[in-house]
């Protein structure tokens, strides 16, 4: 695996505010990395550092093995796609696509060829003579991607490229980006705060918080083995249930009201004391199926949210609220008493103080 983008000990401050601190990140050639995190955690800042649009305070950035820390954006071999599209409003689509190439004084024939190729890939040939105002949101976003495409670069940077679009279009374009990656095999670094995008697109996801990468792993690991409470709570919708209790040995005692046996949970480094058991809503089963589970309990349903494909219900155990997901066919209604069950082995246990997985 060759390294495409390598970030070493990167720090960045705006005045006194430290936004990124000693950040390291290695991205392999052809990898699709998604930076995911709450607003203001420094995702865009990191991306801008990679692009060379912000001057780093400390650290180094390598792209394709070359130290580009001090290079101009255009010399880094990157293309970038922005949330607000950032198309040049006074230029036609064609001009937008070719602008960078013309600035670089590329021969006309070559420019045309590249524009042609990019517009074929993105299926925007009929739009070439239009101006951005005459395009729909999705078309604009495609042109924005095209502008990165024509540059024929190794690394694509996306800063929330889809978040200005409506749900339907977002879905469609997401697939398109996925196809594009499959076809081009470039390295892509993609910023988003939409987890569906992150889960479906990424080879690896970097979950960030306050300028620090919390976990960098493939989506499956992130989803199923979050390293800490933050990651666990951030990923998943409806979000993971957290049951606070006191752990001693393999038993979590919840408020003295209930004891949850964690016998089949694989502890990494078990520590007794205040702990949190995280269990995903879809890992809680209801009704007859619950009887097969290691942990079972009666509970009363408070709210039911039918989502079409499935239903989300809210209940409480030992005074702590719990969400679970059931198939749309299962009939649930508020006030109903049901048996629920789950396998703690599929959950995650965290130390309440440090928040880290144990």
């Amino acid at each position, binding site marked *: 695996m060759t390294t495409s983008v390598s970030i070493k000990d990167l720090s960045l401050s705006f005045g006194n505010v430290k936004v990124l601190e000693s950040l390291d990140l290695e991205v392999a050639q052809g990898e699709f990395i998604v930076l995911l995190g709450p607003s203001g955690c420094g995702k865009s800042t990191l991306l*801008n550092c990679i*692009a*060379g*649009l912000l001057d780093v305070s400390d650290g180094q950035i390598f792209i394709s093995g070359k130290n580009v820390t001090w290079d*101009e*954006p*255009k010399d880094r071999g*990157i*293309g*970038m796609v*922005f*949330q*607000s*599209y*950032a*198309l*040049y*409003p*006074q230029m036609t689509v064609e001009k937008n696509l070719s*602008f*960078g190439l013309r*600035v*670089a004084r590329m021969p006309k024939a070559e420019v045309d060829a590249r524009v042609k190729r990019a517009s074929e890939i993105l299926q925007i040939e009929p739009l070439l003579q239009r101006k951005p105002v005459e395009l729909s949101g999705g078309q604009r976003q495609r042109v924005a991607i095209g*502008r990165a495409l024509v*540059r024929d670069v190794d690394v694509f940077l996306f800063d929330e490229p889809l978040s200005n679009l409506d749900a339907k279009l977002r879905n469609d374009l997401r697939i398109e980006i996925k196809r594009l990656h499959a076809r081009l095999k470039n390295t892509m670094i993609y910023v988003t705060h939409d987890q569906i995008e992150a889960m479906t697109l990424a080879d690896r996801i970097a979950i960030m918080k306050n300028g620090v990468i919390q976990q960098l792993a493939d989506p499956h690991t992130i989803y199923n083995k979050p390293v800490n409470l933050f990651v666990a709570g951030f990923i998943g919708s409806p979000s993971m249930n957290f049951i606070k209790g006191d752990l001693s040995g393999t038993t979590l005692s919840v408020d003295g009201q209930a004891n949850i046996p964690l016998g089949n949970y694989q502890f990494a480094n078990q520590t007794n004391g205040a702990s949190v058991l995280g269990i995903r809503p879809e890992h809680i089963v209801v009704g007859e199926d619950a009887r097969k589970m290691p942990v079972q309990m009666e509970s009363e349903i408070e709210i039911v949210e039918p989502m079409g494909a499935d239903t989300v219900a809210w209940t409480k155990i030992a005074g702590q609220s719990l969400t679970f997901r059931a198939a749309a066919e299962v009939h649930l209604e508020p006030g109903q008493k049901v048996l629920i069950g789950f396998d703690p082995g599929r959950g995650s246990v965290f130390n309440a103080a440090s928040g880290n997985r144990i």
Partner: protein
Amino acid sequence: MTTEAISSGFSTGPTATTGPRGPKPKTVTIGRIGVYAFLILSAVFFLLPLWVMIVTSLKTMPEIREGHLFNWPALLTFDPWLKAWDTACTGRDCNGLKPGFWNSVKITALSVPVSIVIAMINGYALSFWKYKGSELLFGILIFGAFVPFQVVIYPLIIGLSKIGLFATLPGIVVVHTIFGMPILTLLYRNFFASLPIELFKAGRVDGAGFWGIFFRIMLPMSVPITIVAIILQVTGIWNDFLFGTVFAGRENMPMTVQLNNIVTTTTGIREYNVNMAATILTAAVPLVVYFISGKWFVRGIAAGAVKG
């Protein structure tokens, strides 16, 4: 529509579809009358002086001496206009405003674009390419907007004559550029600050530099605010008298100097009708600019000036 609404009000359908239907009938409210009354009264206030200027310029001197400032001339005459344009004395020469007109055009045509482009670059740099001290410079510039012109004149004269631009056309252009700079830079800075920063970033990724982004991306986008700048500068520069007399040089004396020569006199006779005609003639160019592009003025301001 209203009749329809009424007739449906009387229809006795099976459902309860009685009562108001369709658009609310427009009634002339007191508020509405008040709005127009206020606007019209204000308009009268703004138009009255223009009216006075026009009627006075069409009167003969004896009639003016009678008073009746607002009356339409009893004896209509266009001589004052001819005289103002063509034969009024502005010193030894009696060629009216005519000769200065072209000087004014020359000065305005050169100074307006130069001052605007420079202010545009300033605003652009201040928004996208801040450097250490750039904000301080801008602060000083804004401060300069409050300095009475004459305070600055002496050093400027000395400076310009050192570089050989004193009393030349380029010299007056420089002066107008300097004094237009504070407000125009403020306008452009606010305008560029309101543009999405991503446009700038995209330009940089595309490999355009300071000038590339300026000329190829920002300049074409700044049309609305540029219209505001043009209006401000055309009126300011065209109406300038002070700098024209000192910095333009004898061959380039603007029209306002001649207007002043016609209108002002210490110990001579005053011809009010000619004065008024000359005044209107001199104001004609900025007025035309206003009436043509006034529509874009508010929009242009909205595009930039209103952002904090």
